[in-house]
Structure formats: structure tokens, C-alpha cells
């Protein structure tokens, strides 16, 4: 079942969606809930879309079963997506004429309840009745989520909504089993904490700000230093200062903020300071579309900064993956003393989804530590030349060792040098860390036929939709498979070469305009995609988008259902 609630900014769409999500979660459904908000505080058009089912759902879908319209604009923008037998829930005052309409006098019921801002809760009451869900579930969630001051009026309102209509369906009542309802931003933050995070600095920037507010809210309980920096340059240099002093550090931003951090990225590279940089992508360049989604920072994050140094780029694919991969990123950064970039995007960070319980210990131990290195004899040298390229790291003040780091090229002791031989030794030492890192790479997840004739490649947040499209097409008789990349740079290549061999055609499916993954694969693996399915209007690619797009390439078209 797919439901959309739309209105203007300030109408309380976010609040209503939050309450409804919790009710559906408590009723035992899996859900996937996305937000489409404009970069403004009042007015405009915002909507939330909740897809729910007794079985897991990993992406949004386009066609709607229920449309709740607070205003005329919601109706005109979304009515085309409402199924012929769908339900349009709105106030008759809007003057809409549509056979799918279920008119409920929302405004007057809200007034009768004693607060004009209870429209959302009246809609929730009506939905409970329509779908055959018990009113008590809604009431207990309201008790939990609302302040005592607002509770009574909302309990009256939800009852009024419930009594305003009749039951149309009886939804199943599946059993909930310790599942979580989380956004991709929340799981990323939780994963960072599980990975040992001790320091987080950031400058507010959509859509990464939810990380900063999450960490600030829980700083005290989690023994975490959280600092709102004066700009992103300060944010990354703070993280590097904290990292030098012995804290596991992370920064979060979006593409524009990451642009400002790039010099700091190179500093982390040459000074060998562990740091995790989360880039919650939005469409660029410059200010771009602040509240919308894109996957266009892939090549930028792989190659940003002057000079050459090892780094790692990981794209998180769903909420659970964001948890485990962010924890892993912190551990890899520490183990190899490198910057690790974690790519998410607005769609994944802001969407709420039901997932299986998360395993904190598994996340905390996802990387095996380096074998212990013998203490250097004599004077401690921060950049001692080693076979692995990783030098023993000391925490300043924790021993007699003096710890010296430098953004200039430096000798083993960490002081500036221009010696030609030392320069080569240090470049090579840093590069050697890639050998160990390459052994840690996780291959992309594969969905589909054992020996597919068509192969799709994608990364990050589109992975669930791509996998769903592949399953649908294979059910229709296609021979298709998809590789969903998480680790991107260095690029894992085993699965890629294995499946590429059988495929007659390979398509990259990406949320950008220039097929950046296809370019990366060509550059790193010397393999050429046949074509690419690209979306870059700032709205997330749906399963329907992928099916339609592949049809244009002649896939899934002539195959009988």
C-alpha cells in the first residue's frame, strides 16, 4: 500500500507523517517513508510518501493507493499517480470533483476538536477506520509522542476522524519482532558511535544537518565531543586536530561543504591522520537544489585534492548498510591512518524505513586490527618507514614519545624536508597502505540470474530499487542481474569481471547526468558500459523509472508477462 500526504510548508506534514509511521510500525508493517520538501519554512509544496507492507520494502514507488490532500496543489500535482481504484482523502471545501474522493470535513472537525491544527490527526483517525486498524494503536502512539498540553485535544480529534467514515478494507495484522524504524541519517550516526566515534564537527548544511543535531542531542550520554564549526574548513581542521590528539573523528557535510574541506582532505592524506568524511549528497554545483537528491559527487570524492595519497570511498546503500559501513569506515580510517569518505544522499538520509535489529558488536568489530607493531627503539618517529606503510601511532601526552605531524612533506620524524630521496620514500610508504586496504574491500551485492545476459551496475541509495526492478524483470522471463556497489574506491573488481563475462550488454543506473560510475569502471577496470540510465531532476529514481528506462533500451518490453 502506498500513501502520499501533501500540503504547504508549515502545514505539519512532517509531524503527521512521523505519527503515522510510528502507528504503522506498531501495527507490524514494514515501511519505507520518503520526504519531498522545498527549501523554505512556509508555503510551497511539501509531501511525505509512505509505502507499507507485511513484507520488507526498500524503496518508494510511484503509483498511489491513498492520497491525502491538504490543498489543491497536492491534488493537481499527484492525482495522476493515484490508481483508478485509489482513495483521495480531502476536505470537500477544496471543491475537487473526482470519483475517487472521500470527502471529510477536516477543517470543521478540527474546529470542533478545539484546535485548527489537528487536521493531520483527524486524517490519521479516518485512515485507521478505513483500513480496519484499531483506534487504540493510534491513541497509544499519540500518548507517547505528544506533550501533555496537546494530548487531550488530539485524542478528541483522532476519535472524530475515526467516526467520520466507514471501514473500506481489512489490512492484515502482521507480527512485529523488535524491528527498528529509522532514517538513513540516524543509522549512519548510530553506526559512527558503534565504530568508536569520539569527536564530530560540522557546519549546518542540508541534507547533512540531521547528523549534527543527532550527535548534539546524544553527546552527553555517548561521551562525544560535538562542535558546530564556523565553516567547513574549521570543521575538518578541528577533526584533524582531535584525530592527532587521539580521538576517533568524523565530519559530515554535503557537496558544497566538502568542496571547502578538500585542502583538509589532502592534509589528512599526507599527515596520515585518520578521519571519516560523510558527504550527504544533494544536486550541485554550488548551491544546486538544497533539499533534493543526487549521486553526483562520486568522482569528486574519489579524486578531490591536489597531490596523491591513499583514500577510500564507500557509498551506503540502505539504512542498515549506513550503520555497518559507517562503523567500518571509522575502523578502516584508524587502521590505515587515512581519510575515508562515506557517500549518502538526501533520499537515503531523510527516508524512514523499517529494518531488522542492528548488531552493535558486529559493527564495532567489522575490521580486524593490524598485528601489533614492535615499539621502535630509540626516539619515536611518527612516520617510521614500515613494510605495510602504516607507522606506529602514539597519542601525545600518553607516553614519553613526542608526536610530530606535518602538512609539508616530512621525514620519518615528522619535520619538513625537501630531500628528493625522502620524498620518494614517503610517497611510496603512503601508497603501500593501499595493498592492505585492497584486501579489505567488499565486493558489490549481486541480485539476479546466475549467468545474466544483461547486467546492471549501480551504487548507493538506488540499490534497493534496482534490485526490485531486476526481480520483477526476471519474473517476467528476462535474464538480468545487478551489482550494487558499496565500496567504490579503490574499486572492487572480482564480481564485476565475473558477471561482465556472460553479459551481452551492461547498463549503469545512476542518479547523475554524466554516468560517473560507468566512467570509474572504465578507468579502473577497463570495461565499457553499453549505455547508462540516468536521472538528475533532483527526485529519486523509482522502480517504475528503472523499468521504463530499461524498456527504452529494449529490455523487458517484448517479454511476455
Amino acid at each position, binding site marked *: 500500500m502506498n500513501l502520499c500526504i501533501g500540503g504547504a510548508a508549515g502545514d505539519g506534514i512532517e509531524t503527521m507523517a512521523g505519527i503515522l509511521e510510528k502507528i504503522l510500525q506498531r501495527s507490524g508493517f514494514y515501511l519505507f517513508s520518503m520526504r519531498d520538501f522545498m527549501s523554505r519554512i512556509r508555503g510551497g509544496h511539501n509531501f511525505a510518501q509512505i509505502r507499507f507492507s507485511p513484507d520488507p520494502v526498500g524503496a518508494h514507488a510511484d503509483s498511489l493507493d491513498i492520497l491525502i490532500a491538504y490543498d489543491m496543489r497536492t491534488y493537481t500535482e499527484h492525482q495522476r499517480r493515484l490508481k483508478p481504484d485509489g482513495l483521495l482523502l480531502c476536505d470537500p471545501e477544496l471543491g475537487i470533483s473526482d470519483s475517487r474522493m472521500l470527502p471529510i470535513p477536516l477543517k470543521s472537525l478540527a474546529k470542533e476538536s478545539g484546535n485548527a491544527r489537528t487536521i493531520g490527526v483527524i486524517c490519521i483517525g479516518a485512515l485507521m477506520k478505513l483500513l480496519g486498524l484499531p483506534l487504540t494503536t493510534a491513541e497509544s502512539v499519540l500518548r507517547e509522542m505528544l506533550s501533555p498540553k496537546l494530548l487531550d485535544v488530539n485524542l478528541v480529534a483522532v476519535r472524530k476522524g475515526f467516526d467520520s467514515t466507514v471501514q473500506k478494507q481489512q489490512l492484515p495484522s502482521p507480527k512485529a519482532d*523488535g*524491528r*527498528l*524504524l*529509522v532514517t538513513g541519517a540516524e543509522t549512519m550516526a*548510530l553506526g559512527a*558511535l*558503534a565504530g*568508536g*566515534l*569520539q*569527536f564530530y*564537527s560540522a557546519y549546518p548544511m542540508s541534507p547533512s544537518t540531521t547528523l549534527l543535531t543527532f550527535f548534539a542531542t*546524544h*553527546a*552527553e*550520554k*555517548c*561521551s*562525544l*565531543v560535538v*562542535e558546530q*564549526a*564556523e*565553516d567547513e*574548513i*574549521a570543521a575538518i*581542521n*578541528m577533526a*584533524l*586536530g*582531535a584525530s*592527532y*590528539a*587521539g*580521538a576517533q*573523528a568524523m565530519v559530515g557535510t554535503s557537496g558544497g561543504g566538502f568542496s571547502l574541506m578538500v*585542502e*583538509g582532505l589532502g*592534509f589528512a592524506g599526507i599527515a596520515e591522520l585518520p578521519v571519516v568524511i560523510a558527504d550527504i549528497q544533494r544536486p550541485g554545483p554550488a548551491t544546486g537544489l538544497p533539499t533534493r537528491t543526487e549521486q553526483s559527487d562520486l568522482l569528486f570524492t574519489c579524486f578531490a585534492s591536489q597531490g596523491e595519497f591513499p583514500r577510500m570511498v564507500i557509498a551506503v546503500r540502505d539504512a542498515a548498510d549506513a550503520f555497518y559501513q559507517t562503523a567500518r569506515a571509522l575502523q578502516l580510517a584508524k587502521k590505515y591512518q587515512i581519510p575515508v569518505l562515506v557517500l549518502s544522499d538526501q533520499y537515503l538520509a531523510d527516508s524512514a524505513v523499517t529494518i531488522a*535489529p*542492528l548488531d*552493535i*558488536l558486529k559493527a564495532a568489530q567489522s575490521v580486524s586490527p593490524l598485528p601489533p607493531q614492535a615499539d621502535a627503539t630509540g626516539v619515536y618517529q611518527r612516520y617510521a618507514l614500515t613494510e605495510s606503510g602504516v607507522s606506529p601511532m602514539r*597519542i*601525545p*601526552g600518553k*607516553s*614519553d*614519545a*613526542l*608526536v*610530530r*605531524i*606535518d*602538512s*609539508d612533506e616530512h621525514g620519518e620524524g*615528522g*619535520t*619538513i624536508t625537501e630531500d628528493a630521496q625522502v620524498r620518494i620514500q614517503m610517497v611510496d610508504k603512503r601508497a603501500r597502505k593501499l595493498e592492505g586496504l585492497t584486501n579489505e574491500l567488499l565486493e558489490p551485492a549481486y541480485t539476479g540470474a546466475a549467468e545474466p545476459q544483461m547486467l546492471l551496475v549501480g551504487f548507493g541509495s538506488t540499490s534497493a530499487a534496482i534490485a526490485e526492478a531486476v526481480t520483477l524483470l526476471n519474473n517476467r522471463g528476462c535474464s538480468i542481474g545487478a551489482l550494487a556497489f558499496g565500496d567504490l574506491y579503490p574499486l572492487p573488481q572480482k564480481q564485476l569481471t565475473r558477471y561482465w563475462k556472460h553479459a551481452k550488454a551492461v547498463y549503469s543506473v545512476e542518479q547523475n547526468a554524466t554516468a560517473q560510475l560507468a566512467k570509474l569502471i572504465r578507468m579502473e577496470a577497463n570495461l565499457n558500459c553499453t549505455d547508462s540510465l540516468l536521472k538528475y531532476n533532483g527526485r529519486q529514481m523509482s522502480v517504475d523509472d528503472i523499468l521504463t528506462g530499461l524498456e527504452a533500451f529494449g529490455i523487458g518490453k517484448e517479454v511476455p508477462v
Partner: protein
Amino acid sequence: MTDTAFYSTETAWCPGCGNFDIVQTLTNVLGDLQLSPNQVLLVGGIGQAAKLNQYVNANGFSGLHGRALPASVAAKMVNQALTVIVDTGDGDSYGEGGNHFLHNIRRNVDITHFAHDNQIYGLTKGQTSPTSDPCGVSPSGACNLSKPFKPLLVALAAGATFVARTFSGNKEHMAKIMKAAILHKGYALVDILQPCISFNKVNTFAYYKEHTYELEAAYDAGNLETALLRSMEYGPKIPLGIFYQVEMPTYHQQRPAIYDGTPMIDKKASVAQLEALLGQFA
């Protein structure tokens, strides 16, 4: 007399550079304060002054141009047991690092900032610095057509709790001010006038010797209004000394729930705390 624990030798400075007096005085002060080298973290950005940490036997962080302050305050945030001192130039402190200068004053993290102010860009060979004299006063290749930056006035306006000026040629005064700055609880700024013998032919050792004078003995460093007035005095007569010093809660003291005395590097979220946090999403 040079303190042996902290002193190291080879430098990239020009013979006769004011930096020599600064590093020698600083190592002596650190010795006098009975700090051991592993408790001290010296931080620099980029520039000739910023190299100071490489010539002292202590922990050293040579960061990016203009970014010494954010790195320093963060190191102190996670380990308040370290004595954190920034030594870097006027271009690094007030030009490239201007935004960090303003906002780190407001944070009042307990660090010390020695800004080596030679009123010129030395390492890049003689360009105008934010603090170069106005062209009307001393026309030279590197004079300011823009208004010269007044670091002390700006620091006071931003809420600094310790603001001072000294001169590298007056080592006794410099030692006294350095010691007071390091002992101050909170962010301490010391603007250190220093000749650049290669590129600044106007603001020389003799120039500073002639134009500087010490604030009178009766001067009240606890009065912000007086401090604001005296910090604007910069021309034929340049006052030296502690312009303003006040005890205010430091960054750590303002957050007692988080900073309970145990350095943050020795703490992190426990599995039980994380399980409880996950429980909120069930």
C-alpha cells in the same frame, strides 16, 4: 641561558630574525613552568613563524595555512591535559585564518596564541600583511591601502579574556607576558611585534625599540573600556603589556556534563548506552 629540555637547533630562519628571540624565550618559559615536553603541544599553520614548533623539543603539529586555531582547540577539547600553544604569523592568524580567529576567541578554549607580527609576508617574499602600516604613514612596497587590521581591538570586541602585546626585542617583557598568557585559563592572545630583517625595512628592530613603551604600572587590565581605548593606540607610540585579562568560564567549564575531568580520548559510548539509544527506534 637556554632551557635544555625544550631547545632544538637547526632552523630555516634568516640570521638575525626576530623568531630566534621568540623561540629562545618560549623554551625558557616552558622550562620555568616546569612542564615536560610530552605535555606540551605546539601548533603552527604555514609561514616562517609557523615553523617554530619544528625547532622545539615538544609535541608538534604543523597544519594548513590559516588553520592552526581549529586544530588546536579540538586537540584541547579531547585532551585538556595538554598545554596547547599556537605559534604562527600575522598572515596565518589574521589573514587566511581570520574567520577562525574571530570564532575561536568566542569559544574561549584554554589555549595560548602567540601571533608573530612582523607586519609583512616573509615566506612569500614581501607582500602586504593585514597588519602592515598604512601607506600614508610609511610608504613602502608592502604598505596597506586597505585599513590595517587591529588584532587587539578585534580580539577585545570578540570577547577575548586575555589580550596582550609584546616585542621580540624586549625579552624580559616577552617572557613575563608569555608566562602570564600560558597560565591564563581561557584563550589568550599575544601579538608579538617582531622585525623581518629581509623584507620589512620600515618596522625594524630600531623602529620598534623607538616606538614601543610599556603600559604604566597603574594600568587596570580589568577594565574593558580602557582596554578598547588603549588597543586603538598604534602609531608613533605603541603600548606593550597586558591590555585586558578577565576570568570567564572556559569552553570546558561551560560544559560540565561532558567535561568531567577525564580526557575525552579516554571515553566513548558503551555498548549498553548504544543499546539504549537503539531502543528509542523500536
